[in-house]
């Protein structure tokens, strides 16, 4: 079996266990952060795709059914005349009920409400000018109609997503920074503990790179193993969150499929941590030793 030879008993010392545990926690946090960011991006994409190039036209319930029917027919006629409209369809009552049920409860309650007519419009292409023109035409002929092109809502959602991306990125940077600090202090501690052994190595001809190599190999192993331990913690936590999220009514949150790249990133996390630990330890040791006589 492959065994890494070390001239110090680095494997079992206190700082090794300390770094292993902290790396596991950091990877756990980073994995959750990356997953949340990936979920949010996928959610934004799903919403974006579902509303881009669409309009929602709401015709409020008027003083009488006749007015509502007339307005509905007029709007449909105006829409069907246009070449830049792909389709225009009224959302059926049962579909409306399904959308409202998570908020309002039973169908009996919904039936008593003066619900508007909702018309779903899909444009040939995502064209802000066309959407604006259609809105003006509808409003001029049916002043009570409320036209929603989702742009404002979309812009806010995009802003939220960008903000969350930055927060997730900041979280990952903080995690990496914390790892660097942990490795620096753990390495310093070990160097102090093994000062005499290091002096012996120098006396028999070891360069600083030889000493640094032993510490950096240990850090690499700790980083990778700690990282996988963090993923082991992450799996049940993520599974639990997914299970709880699946219980939310479909009308409130659409189903999202997390991208394959996410799993690649998660699996890469332990190796990234290991690599960063290794480099940090190497630099730390060389720096401290260079200050000695």
């Amino acid at each position, binding site marked *: 079996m492959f065994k890494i*030879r070390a*001239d*110090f*008993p680095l494997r079992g010392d206190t700082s090794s266990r300390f770094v292993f545990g902290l790396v596991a926690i950091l990877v756990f946090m980073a994995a959750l952060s990356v997953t949340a960011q990936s979920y949010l991006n996928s959610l934004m994409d799903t919403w974006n795709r579902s509303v881009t190039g669409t309009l929602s036209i709401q015709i409020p319930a008027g003083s009488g059914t006749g007015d509502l029917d007339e307005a509905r027919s007029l709007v449909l006629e105006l829409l069907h005349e246009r070449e830049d409209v792909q389709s225009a369809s009224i959302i059926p009552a049962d579909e409306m009920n399904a959308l409202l049920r998570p908020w309002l409860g039973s169908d009996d309650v919904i039936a008593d409400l003066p619900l508007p007519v909702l018309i779903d419009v899909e444009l040939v292409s995502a064209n802000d000018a066309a959407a604006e023109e259609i809105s003006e035409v509808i409003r001029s002929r049916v002043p009570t109609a409320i036209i929603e092109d989702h742009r404002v809502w979309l812009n806010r959602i995009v802003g939220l997503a960008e903000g969350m991306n930055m927060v997730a990125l900041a979280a990952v940077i903080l995690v990496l920074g914390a790892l660097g600090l942990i490795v620096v202090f753990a390495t310093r501690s070990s160097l102090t503990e093994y000062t005499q052994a290091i*002096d012996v*190595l*120098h*006396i*028999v*001809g070891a360069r600083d790179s030889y000493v640094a190599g032993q510490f950096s190999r240990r850090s690499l192993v700790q980083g990778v193993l700690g990282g996988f331990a963090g993923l082991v913690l992450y799996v049940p936590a993520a599974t639990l969150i997914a299970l709880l999220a699946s219980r939310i009514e479909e009308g409130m949150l659409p189903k999202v499929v997390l991208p394959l790249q996410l799993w690649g990133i998660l699996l890469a996390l332990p190796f990234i941590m290991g690599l960063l630990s290794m480099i940090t330890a190497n630099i730390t040791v060389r720096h401290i030793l260079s200050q000695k006589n």
Partner: protein
Amino acid sequence: MALLRKNKGNYAGPTAKLEDVGLQYEDGPEVLKDVSLEIPQKSFHFLTGPSGAGKTSLMSLLYLARRPNRGQLNLFGEDVSNINRNKAADLRRRLGVIFQDFRLLDHLSAFDNVALPLRISGTSDSVVSENVSELLKWVGLEDYMDAKPSTLSGGQQQRIAIARAVVNRPNLILADEPTGNVDDAIAMRLMQLFIELHKLGSSVIIATHNEALVERFPFPRLHIDRGNVILMPASL
């Protein structure tokens, strides 16, 4: 011993040369004053003097644990005043140092302690195994290869320390009381090892209080007294 091959190298000057060297610790008085001496190649010296005279300090200069506060120190022709750490490490590979307190690595076995200089210099495992085994056998510790130093007697530890110092065929051997913890028979065997290495080209400096040992061998002595070094001829 097969591992004791002749020294190679093209440098013809003294192994070590000190010119007006002074050494002090922090702001204290100088422990070595105006030391000027040459250690020729293939020379053998005893280093004598009362306790606190500066023997250990002189040794520490020679194995580059310290740099002189003034004067010049040349080792194998290299001025060590401003050499970088890598160069200092490379010079130390040509040294063999035996400490009075052994300075073995407690978590390594006897074998691994002796193998250390060879592994550091990149020697292959097969050569390491052959040389270290032979050397441990020569110092009478072939049955203790896997033993940790803490389980061994002072004399056994000293033999391991000596084996570690000579395994790399150093050009300069610095020994601080190498026979202090062993019986006469082992002491003579160890001295024979030093003499053998000397014949094969190593310079040897042995710091000792043992006047009987000094008088038994025909080698000159460097006598230190209150920081000053005097070269004295061989006793015989």
